[in-house]
């Protein structure tokens, strides 16, 4: 049915289309968020339970200071960069809504 129009879509079609786009984007967002959450919530645990590792001296810094004060910024930028690239790929895949709708299960 190549001639289907946007106006002809039912509410159920909207739901299926939205679900198709959202599950792809959400999967990516959750994966990247998981990496970030592990870093940010993990560091206090290392600081608390492994103080000797966290406070090892590195060129004037301690390891944990060097990480939280300097290195975390490029790491987060790299995560964001990865997300934006992948997100673009997903959007390109989703551009053809007719194909997307045909692939999405009905229920």
């Amino acid at each position: 049915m190549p001639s289907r129009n946007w106006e002809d879509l039912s509410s159920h079609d909207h739901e299926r289309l939205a679900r198709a786009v959202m599950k792809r984007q959400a999967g990516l967002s959750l994966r990247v968020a998981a990496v970030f959450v592990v870093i940010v919530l993990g560091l206090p645990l290392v600081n608390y339970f492994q103080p000797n590792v966290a406070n090892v001296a590195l060129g004037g810094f301690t390891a944990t200071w060097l990480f939280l004060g300097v290195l975390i910024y490029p790491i987060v930028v790299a995560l964001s960069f990865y997300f934006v690239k992948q997100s673009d790929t997903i959007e390109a895949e989703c551009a053809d809504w007719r194909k997307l709708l045909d692939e999405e299960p009905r229920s």
Partner: protein
Amino acid sequence: MSTGWIPVAFVAAMTLATIGLGLLATRRAKTASDFFVAGRSVSVFWNASAISGEYLSAASFLGIAGLLMKNGYDALWYPVCYATGYLFLLLFIAGPLRRFGAYTIPDFAEGRFDSPAFRKVAVSFVLFIGFFYTMPQMKGAGVTMGAILDWPYWAGIAVVGSVITFNVALGGMKGITFVQAFQYWAKVFAISLPVFVLASVFGGYGSNLEPNLKDGAPATNRDIPLKFKGPAAYPANVLKFSNAGPSKIDFPKGANASRIIPTSNAASKEQNDESTGGLYMSFDYTPENGINGLDTLKDSPTGQVQLTAPTSGILKSGSIPPNAPLNQTWLRPFGPLTSKHGHPLLYTYSLIIALICGTAGLPHILVRFYTNPDGRAAKRTTLWVMVMLGAFYVFPPFWGAMGRQVMPELYANSATDTVVIRLPTMLSSPLLGQILSGVTSAGAFAAFMSTFSGLLVSMSGALAHDIYGKILRPGASQASRLTAFKVSAVIIGLTSMGLGLLVESFDIAMMVGWAFAIGACSYFPLLLLGSWWSRLTKFGAGAGMLVGGFAALGAIVTSMLLDKKILTLEVTPLVRSLLEQPAIWGVPLSISLMVVVSLFTSNSLPKDVHLKMLRLHAPEEMGLSKDYIVEH
């Protein structure tokens, strides 16, 4: 020749540049769309610069360096979370929010739920969070002008407030976008360039941290005259002596240190100033003997006195300044900031949640995402914001670490907040010192001005577009809405200046914390669930926002009243930590209320909810996107 005029010249130049650029950009702002969302045509680079410029406030420019100098490692979480909070915004909110195509966050609230009533709730939070965020900016302006020029507190507020109100009323969003972008670059320059010059004299980041690996605390290397605060500034009037080494403060004859707590022998000290060689009195503290003359402190390992009147004094060379944390405590995690109530890990986590979720819930920042041409540009903008903020936030902790080694005297009278302004004056060339201090003062001014202008646009937008244009007079013409915007800007500008005058004795970082915690417990859950969960209803969203936001506010205000000893209440350290940092329970509370109430009110879902969800997430290439608000 006196060089004191140099910082003033820098501040004046920054102010004039702000007015001039505002006027220049204003010539091109004509339509309502220009005023509210800059015609939705701001490029990624300019928008990222403008968002970063708007975001870097007094708290970032002055507060973080001071907080780090005072608290050490724990304070690193502030810059880290201020910057990386944008990752959550990028992952979950930036794209959908832009694709919805509204002008303001209340538009989103109304459009997502087809509920004009919910718009009112959302508007009230825009104004509410906005005013909490303007107060610390106003205080920063007043205090900085006091520090560099000896102006009275109200004068700095009046100057910054009027300049920005003028700019915003004239040019709206389009007028300030370019100005804020310029101010980002001015701030990055002002925080980084002086620190490189200082590092060539006082050593790099690592070599300023290294002395903290050993026991002890930094000591003064010369006699330093200091002003001490009185009881109105509690707890800044407390002098806490550590067991790291000796400390000596002379109070010159005629100084008004008439009473101190504990009082034991102080009174007798006052009277025998003849026997102390013209000194009014002197605190001569050693860890072994306590404070000479204050018997009650001899047995305690750390002496502590409270000044009950403002006074001046001389901190003698070789002293460990009072209030300076010990090297190891300062350098290592779980220092004075997070350990004060005995639950350091809990406190750290709650702080992280408040700052990260709060960043994604600040309406004056979110409104900027509507100035992007499309959802894809919104994501790219967020990525660049993180690059730009990261480049800025590496520096304030470096300032704090250097301040600890070079100007430890700032601990003595709780003046660590001024380290960015005062550290350059330690250079041996007074001319170079004053020039660099001028650069940082101008940077601080750019910080208040850009954040205040962003807040003013977002609050004036809420008043003119949401309250006047949608609630009071729905059919108002473009011209009358433009006038409403300008009138709103003036009303809100004046109100903010008035509120700023009331908060002189409150902490800048504390007030910013209020705004973040309220945003984290109200707007963040609304935007997160609103964008990703189709079954969220207006009742669920409203209940979560109101209960979460007000519970967080109540907890923080209670905690502040306990701090200032206005309220006396016996609470366990655990409860105390949870009151001071409410995000760890406030965010889950708000989210679960939204879910539960929504499930019970599922019959109030809008009929076309799936179309709305599709609009939020559909890439522009699909050809289905449509801005919620389009100017004809």
